[in-house]
């Protein structure tokens, strides 16, 4: 049975520690754009931890919300691409084929979550920082749109390993870098087609909601809302 990769994000566990953000940079050769470009809003973070304040001092609270590509089943970014650079993979991911991309940036406009990032210039790494680059992930040159891939290269290698060992993939075996690193285990990754997998279980949770679900994009990422503490919940 084909996989359908999905993620569950437990907002009650997320502490806003940004471990996922750096894990993603390290895994996916995301270039650092520098201060000037960052000021222009051209920094690239495939996953970001959104921070929303609630209330005013002294009664302030904050909501942290990690946002990455939601890998929509009904993705607005896919149909608008004139060259099939953004396309739907058989495992339900919103794939992005970098060298099909001609840089219309249409997909980025269409994306309701603003999780697509554009290479405004050719990325450069001051030697020897380039030695860190991950050979599994291709570099993106100027004019190319890039985005979270659910670390498709990690999924792939897990699948190959499983095939060599002549077994099925274990639940949670392929884990994107962000999920692997997340200290409070706020991020859970797995196969939504397997009803027993942890991610399916969480996706069914009562706390589960889809980000901007009302838009009908049918994301494969489920957000578990934060609980409020009340005296008698023990």
């Amino acid at each position, binding site marked *: 049975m084909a996989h359908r990769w999905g993620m569950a994000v437990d907002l009650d566990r997320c*502490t806003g520690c940004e471990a996922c953000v750096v894990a993603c940079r390290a895994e996916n050769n995301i270039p650092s754009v520098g201060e000037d470009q960052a000021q222009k809003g051209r920094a690239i973070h495939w996953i970001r931890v959104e*921070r929303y304040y609630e209330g005013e001092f002294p009664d302030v609270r904050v909501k942290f919300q990690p946002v990455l590509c939601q890998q929509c089943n009904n993705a607005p970014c896919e149909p608008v691409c004139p060259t099939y650079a953004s396309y739907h993979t058989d495992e339900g991911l919103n794939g992005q084929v970098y060298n099909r991309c001609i840089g219309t940036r249409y997909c980025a406009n269409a994306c309701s979550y603003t999780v697509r990032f554009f290479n405004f210039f050719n990325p450069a790494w001051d030697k020897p920082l380039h*030695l860190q680059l991950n050979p*599994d992930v291709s570099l993106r040159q100027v004019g190319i749109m890039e985005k979270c891939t659910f670390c498709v290269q990690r999924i792939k*290698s897990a699948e190959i390993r499983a095939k060599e060992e002549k077994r099925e993939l274990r639940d949670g075996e392929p884990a994107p870098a962000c999920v692997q690193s997340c200290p409070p285990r706020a991020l859970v990754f797995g196969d939504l087609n397997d009803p027993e997998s942890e991610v399916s279980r969480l996706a069914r949770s009562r706390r589960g909601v889809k980000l901007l679900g009302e838009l009908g994009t049918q994301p494969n990422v489920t957000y578990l809302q934060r609980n409020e503490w009340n005296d008698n919940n023990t």
Partner: protein
Amino acid sequence: MERRDFLKVSVLTGATAALSGCEKPAHTLVRFIPEEDLIPSVATWKPSVCTLCPAGCGLMVRVLPGEAEVVRNGKLGTIQMGLAKKLEGNPNHPVNWGKLCARGQAGLQITYHPDRVRSPLKRSGPRGSGSFQPVTWEESIREVVSKLQELQSQNQSESLRFVSACLRGQRHELVRKFLSAFGAPAAMVFDPLDEPVLRQANLLSFGQADMPSFDLAHTGYVISFGADFLGTWNSPVAQSIAYGEMRQGRPGNRAKFVQVEQRMSQTGANADEWIAPRAGTEGAMALGLAHVILKEKLRPAADNKATRLIAGWSQGLAEYSPEQVERKTGVPAQRIQRLAHEMAAHLPAVAIIGGLPLAHTNGLFNALAVNALNTLLGSVGMPGGLFFTPQPPSENAGSWSSESDFASVLLAGKLDGTKVLLLHNANPVFATPAVWKVRETLDRIPFIVSFGSFVDETSQLADLILPDHSPLESWLHDVPKSGTNQAVVSLAAPAMLPLHDTRAMPDTLLEIAHQIGGEAAKALPWENFQEMLQASMAPLRTADGINPPPDPEKFWSKVQEQGGWWSDKVRQAARSAIPQKQLVTEFAPPQFDGEESSFPFHFQPYVSQAFLDGSLAHLPWMQEMPDALSTVMWGTWVEINPKTAQKLAIEQDDLVEVRSQHGKLLAPLLVSPGIAFDVVAMPMGQGHESFGRYASGRGANPMTILAPMQVAETGSLAWASTRVQVSKVGKAKLALFSGGLFERPSELQQR
């Protein structure tokens, strides 16, 4: 089989593809990745240890073959070697169980940093000019040795000084042995991340001069006084893992978390209830809670070392009735009542203190008060409470006490006689108040040797730089002091060959010792650090009580495989029986430098999520990581409440001058809802003069304007007790990653 070979090939091609591309990615073969065509490479994973903060997490390093330009016996060339590609947590390590924080993962960039010191350097210009010329290891070591022998010949051994961040494990042993054998005073610790006040308090309260650990996973109620325990404090990864369990790990049982601080930290942002008392009154608030619990007999009255330290405890803390506490702290009496009841109703409950509350003049009292509260809650050494990490048999307990605090030595003027200063992994010039005049003091020292990998503000003053390997290139040994309830010894072999002409600091020290000869050579018989480590692990072979004990070679390789040794059975930490001076403390209002009239704001520097005390500001990943709350990248900022900003008629992106009695700094203004009206907060870490291309000349350093206030009893820097004034001087531009502050903005906020 064929498949494997195929994969291996693809690794190499893949690697070279990426490498050749580094300069001009336009010319790289950008692989089509319809993921069906994707061929991942096969990596080897090697254990290592994270050395960036005192937590001491275990690492797994992803190593892939690649071509690197390296220097081998003086010649530059390209070789195929294993290259570290990514750092992840060691899944079996009892501190971080496979998880890793943002900073730990960025540690990878230290190894590949373009501005690393690539070979020994000798100062060629005047001090501080930063002009050095490369020299060979032989001559540089010979120079150090001659200098040291000179000292010995003039019996001035005690005028050799060694300053470093908190060292642990065999590195610490090595330094200690070296210094004592040489006849020099014990090493001085300079480590802004260290909490000497808390360790002192714990020594007094619990006879344990260590950082505490917390069993958050099983607790029912957490109240934290200023401790950023999910971000940067103590053992953040371990605490975050536990936090996740505390929130959602136990179906139907979600503990409450209350944070008490003046400026909302990343940790406070996760609290169910956030309370901002007056600065420096946290201890009073803790005792207020204790008062209620005692008065209403919500818990059996406790009477032990910890409580006896608090004046009036046995009388039920008459001084700390909610009303009196309200007057002291500004926290409503009913609220204190309520919290006390909640706490007692949701045991096990635990109180944590760290960071700013300890950095007031009454910091020790605050710590002792919280310790007492913990005792009253019965959380000490109990599941869901506070405990101390057991130490492995190989370690001599309380090794901290053998060091002296750099600050106290400095302020006591004991540094003046120093002839030779060895500098390792510490940057006091950067992270101390300007009024301490550390730069000037060091300038007076005739000969300074730095083991630094980067020419930072302090290494700039060095006459000789003997660059250390990067952690990934070195033998590592560490003994976590907190974050786990198992005795742990982390140990790792180098994950990759050195890129540059550098040497591990322990090996250099051994080399020096051997060349000096005499006592030093006798005290340090080992050929190299690896031998020393192997020897040090021997006692652990039998520690597990397995008999017959495993064969030494097997044990040694097993330890290396799993990244260290840890006893699977949970132990209680052994209390060290250190005689304590009797002291009884009561609440004394915190002292502040500067008149409230002219300096209306409390200045609260805080440990930055990205750079800690500034030791990571040179990593581009950290610079470009948006700070969780401010979402600022590549910069520093001054945080202030919107209402206060209105009063001062300043707004976001104004360049403001923050002035204390001891200096001023300029930084862009950030308006943040999560901060008290009378507080101005600022992250540490930026404002480096010299720390590689990514950090130098960027932002401002809050430490420079701090007043030389000291914490009572301990003498360490009270870095939260400076008052400042704020005024607009111009315009600036913050690189923010976020747009809106609020999820459902009202019409007004959209403008």
